[in-house]
């Protein structure tokens, strides 16, 4: 289980306001994060990944604190909306970087990378450059890399936002299967309420640097009493 406990952060600068997060995610769960722009969704992911250092508070994975670990040692993989792949490297190399950044792979690691590529439906595209792939294929490559990294926490920072509805649904199903198989803990930041419905049993609403509510997705989207949620979603 991933537990964010009283995690405090504040951006440098006079006009920034403090943020303060409390949250729990179960193994095998894909928790959706929704909320207005600038509310702190991506900041929370950056704190978990270690790109930002919290002022205080704890990040616990199975009761072990990871908030002090250097970025590379954290049990975290992240997929962004764009710039996930290195444009001058082919698909295989981009995935293989997840195993070993020196790119010296043992034979069984090569087959592991190939298996992940095939698992994401990219078999045969190993030698393509990212520029020759569609947007959906690029995100699949990024997911394949997350798969070979075998880290417990998977963070999806608007990873599918640039894709069409059908493709988004397809990739979300894929992620759900992977998370379930590997007993990962996943968090999905999205601007589409429909994504949250497909992806998550529970959804967290982030507002003004706080977790304002964590509820079953349908309840949050349709019956929430919070005025902030109603404002964010718009008329009924």
């Amino acid at each position, binding site marked *: 289980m991933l537990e964010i406990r009283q995690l405090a952060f504040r*951006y*440098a600068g006079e006009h920034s306001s403090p943020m303060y997060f409390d949250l729990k995610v179960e193994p095998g769960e894909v928790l959706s994060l929704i909320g207005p722009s600038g509310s702190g969704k991506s900041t929370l992911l*950056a704190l978990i*990944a*270690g*790109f*930002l250092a919290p002022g205080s508070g704890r990040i616990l994975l199975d009761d072990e604190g990871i908030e002090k670990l250097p*970025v*590379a*040692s*954290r049990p*975290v*993989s*992240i997929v*962004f*909306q*764009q*710039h*996930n792949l*290195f*444009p*001058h*490297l082919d698909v295989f190399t981009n995935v293989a*970087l*997840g195993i070993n*950044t*020196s790119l010296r792979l043992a034979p069984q690691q090569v087959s592991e990378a190939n298996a992940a590529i095939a698992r994401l439906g990219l078999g045969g595209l190993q030698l393509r*450059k*990212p*520029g020759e792939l569609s947007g959906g294929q690029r995100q699949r490559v990024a997911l394949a890399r997350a798969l070979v*990294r075998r880290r417990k926490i998977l963070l999806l920072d608007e990873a599918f936002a640039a894709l069409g509805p059908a493709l988004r649904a397809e990739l979300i199903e894929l992620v759900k299967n992977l998370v379930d198989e590997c007993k990962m803990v996943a968090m999905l930041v999205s601007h589409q309420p429909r994504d949250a419905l497909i992806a998550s049993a529970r959804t967290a609403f982030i507002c003004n640097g706080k977790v304002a509510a964590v509820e079953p997705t349908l309840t949050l989207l349709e019956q929430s009493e919070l005025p902030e949620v109603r404002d964010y979603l718009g008329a009924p």
Partner: protein
Amino acid sequence: MLGLIILAPLISLVNLSGLPGYESGDLQFWHSRYIRRVLWFSLWQASLSTLLSVLPAILVARAFALQPSFPMRALLLRLFALPLVVPAVVAVMGVVSVYGSDGWVSLGGSLYGLNGILLAHVFFNLPLAVRLLLPQWQTIPEHHWQLGEQLGMSAWQRWRLLEWPALREALPGIMLLVFMLCLTSFAVVLTLGGGPKSTTLEVAIYQSLRFDFNPARAVVLALLQLLVCMLVAIATLKLQRLPEVEIALNSGARMNRIMHNPLNVALILVAAVYVGLPLLSMLVDAFTGPVVQVIASHYLWLAIGKTLLIGLSTALLSVCAGWFLLQYNASLAHAGQTGRAKLVDLAGSIVYVVPPLVIGTGIFVLLSSRVDVFKWVYPIVIIINALMGLPFVIRSLGATLRQNYARYDYLCQSLGLQGWNRFRYLEWPLSRRSLGLAAALVAALAMGDLGVIALFGTPETATLPLVIYQQLGAYRIPDATVTALVLLCLCLGVFWLLERGIGGKPDA
């Protein structure tokens, strides 16, 4: 307008190729050992200067890029922009003052020749290369740094997988630009080299015309210089690689990446000392030199007046020509006539390939049999320098004007905003900053120019750079140092006035 810009170099070229028949021994020069040696030295010093400038510049630019905040970073970056405005003769005085026989870091007598030329070329081109390379690091998406961190890349792997690919795109172009600048550098080679062992094509052209009065040899040398420059330009076009990047939507720059490394700061400081020391040393030498005698000289004030006249007229001419060229170009491109628009673009950039001394030779040879060229110094110098400034105007102003055209032309048409009102309400406020920068750069370049004025100038029509050269030639180095300081102040002052005067306040 357009005709003038294409014609000036063309006339000279046509004229050059028509000439060799009229002197004796013409084509023999191709086989001359002198010309072979000059050609060899030109290429050799340019290659060495390029390597010595660009390779350290990669390290320094990397240090700047990976050290996004440390005290005086902005100030040091500004110091690295300074050599763009410092006239070559002034830099030469600085180099002499540091590395000359009485200097702080004396190299003894060996300063004159290849050593001195390399020291001066690196002084100019290392900072230039740093400024050109630095933006390449900004093309690396913030997400890539974060992924590199998450994947656990070492510094070496980050360099190989993130930084080098971003750099690779720009490096050939930057190296060829520096190579071209060193190949056509005139003042540095004239003052620090110049002997038979260390003469470049550019200086040999000048010597053939002004000392040996051998126009045929000058023409052969000029054609050779033109050929080499064209080869470099073609190579630049061939090597320009299209970037393989996804289009960035967000810069994500708010994530701050801190990789403090004292080595990087040390590297930057060493480079800053290399760039700053010649200027500082020259300043000290000038203030302890014969300031009063030099300032009191009537001759100096005449030279100041001429320098200002040439600088300001050149800026005016160059900016006006560039403005109309770009407007014409933008309207053609907008009307879908891309072919003709490209032609106009080409006319502007052709000046890159034709060094000033080559145009100068053309005009010299063309006019000298008909009129007394020395009476027409100012118009000739102003026109050639304005042509030389055109690429800077086009680079500084082109993007702004094209953008304005693409964004607001339909709006202007629908509002009926045109002519003077369109200029007053749309183009002036939106482009005055680029306009000011272009005018300031061209004025500073023209005021510091030694090449064209050396070709056409006489003691009566000397500008400050030529005065410095004359003082150097007479071994009056202290006088030359003081004059160099005057020229430096004048250039910086005019640059500042034009940039602020035309461009307005920085945050306007």
